[in-house]
């Protein structure tokens, strides 16, 4: 022992975890989702960097926010992305959101006895939304993608063409709905309308309960609270959540990254006017993903 006496046998334990601060948050709308996180990474009282992303685009309809132990978080995101790529190679399409949610729970629970010390929030578009009122014609409903043809033939073999047309038609014109899934480190998960996690969870979640779920608010006589808020209102709530968390929590600040996922068929109403917005969608004719970046206080 270089420093200290040999008088008492020393037993030291290596702690494989640390906390890297920061906060994440996601809110689901009727036909969109907003997933956001600050970009500060810290350990104890030290700011390690002012820009370390915690929110990641997985597919054109799924965005994952990861908070807790940064090394575990990065490794976990890396492995989820890898599994989604394998899925793409096997099935020639992106994994649906609810399937990604179950995948994440399985991957987290696989590490039950040496957990990834991360809180995950998955946001995006679920394939369970309202149906289009103006139905596109049969020919445009079938996309030109060659693999969709394979799909068609398979179904024909299984069931009569009448049933087939009905099924495929419905799938194609369905408008997705905004969805948020939140997880604990060992995989317990549920679908919610909104969720905050991380260092400032205890500051942000009560605010969301009040503003999104209208808890402790009474609607004016004869009126009821809206079930879903419009995108502009949600973005304002997200920005206010993070500026407030930055004021009151030392581990939150530096930068804010907000991902907006829009359901296919929804017009990007008002979104194009937002300063510094950037589209990160990879395919045309799909749900769309945008990133909005804002500065937060750096002290």
């Amino acid at each position, binding site marked *: 022992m270089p420093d200290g006496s040999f008088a008492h046998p020393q037993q030291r334990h290596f702690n494989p975890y640390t906390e890297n601060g920061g906060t994440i948050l996601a809110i689901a709308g009727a036909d969109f989702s907003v997933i956001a996180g600050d970009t500060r990474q810290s350990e104890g009282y030290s700011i390690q*960097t002012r820009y370390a992303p915690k929110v990641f685009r997985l597919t054109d309809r799924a965005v994952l926010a990861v908070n807790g132990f940064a090394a575990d978080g990065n490794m976990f995101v890396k492995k989820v992305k890898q599994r989604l790529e394998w899925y793409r190679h096997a099935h020639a399409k992106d994994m649906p959101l609810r399937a990604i949610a179950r995948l994440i729970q399985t991957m987290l629970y696989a590490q039950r006895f040496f957990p990834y010390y991360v809180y995950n929030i998955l946001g995006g578009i679920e394939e369970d939304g309202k149906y289009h009122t103006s139905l596109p014609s049969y020919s445009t409903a079938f996309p030109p993608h060659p693999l969709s043809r394979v799909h068609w033939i398979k179904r024909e073999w299984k069931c009569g063409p009448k049933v087939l047309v009905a099924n495929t038609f419905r799938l194609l014109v369905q408008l997705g709905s905004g969805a948020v899934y939140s997880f604990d480190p060992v995989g317990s998960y549920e679908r919610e309308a909104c969720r905050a996690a991380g260092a400032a969870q205890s500051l942000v979640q009560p605010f969301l309960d009040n503003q999104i779920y209208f808890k402790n608010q009474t609607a004016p006589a004869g009126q009821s609270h809206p079930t879903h808020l419009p995108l502009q209102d949600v973005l304002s709530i997200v920005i206010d959540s993070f500026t407030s968390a930055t004021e009151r929590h030392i581990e939150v600040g530096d930068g804010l990254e907000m991902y907006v996922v829009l359901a296919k068929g929804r017009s990007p109403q008002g979104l194009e006017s937002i300063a510094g917005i950037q589209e990160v969608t990879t395919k045309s004719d799909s749900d769309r993903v945008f990133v909005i970046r804002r500065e937060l206080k750096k002290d």
Partner: protein
Amino acid sequence: MDHFPTSWGRPRNEAYDAFNTYPLHQRPNHSKDVFADGVQRTQQPIVTGTSVLALTYKDGIMMAADNLASYGSLARFKSIQRLHAVGNSTVLGASGDMSDYQYIQTLLDELVIDEFTANDKHDLGPAEIHEYLSRVLYSRRSKMNPLWNSLLVGGKKNGKRFLAYVDLLGTTYSASTIATGYGAHIAIPLLRKAIEGRENTLTEAEARSILTEAMRVLFYRDARSLDKFQIATVNDEGVSISETITLETAWGFAEGIRGYGAQTQ
């Protein structure tokens, strides 16, 4: 008859009858590793290096570390080099356990030789070296057998500067100025003030003097530091690690300090 060749020619165990049918005989149990108790994992660093500082400037990145390897509070080795060139576009700076660092050096040297022998006109840049190290350190922490270091990887390849950190937990991040250990507390405020927002205008001479000043402050305040250090630069010309630089220090001010120490007013 014992049909396991590995058991042949070994001293007979008279305690059991190999020909018996009940209870079933068992082979002598070799599965226990007799040296298992002797296997030690790093539970704490022994011979250690203190802070490494790094910054990005106009033409590339610059890194500094002193030449000391301490054994607890003893200044044990006073001409150790803690900056290491990897390939021709990367430099690695190490703090923490020096034997783990030397092991990492052998890993990297093997890696670079493998890449060289492939002779495919590809070589590893700083981003690849950092990714490799972060995987090695994260996998070792996951085996509860960490490599007890905080490492800085810096470099420039294809006109792109790179500076990032990785430690014994596998934690990684990149920033325009980074310091490990005590430097993260003492040097970072000075470095951020001098560098943030000026990454693309700072000249090599300015960068060198900022680093030297930070190293001086660290030598004044960090009891595990030394006044001899080296600076590594990576720019378009490649990697260069300086000769040992000796800090100029002045201790006259200590005379005037009152309020602690041996003196009574």
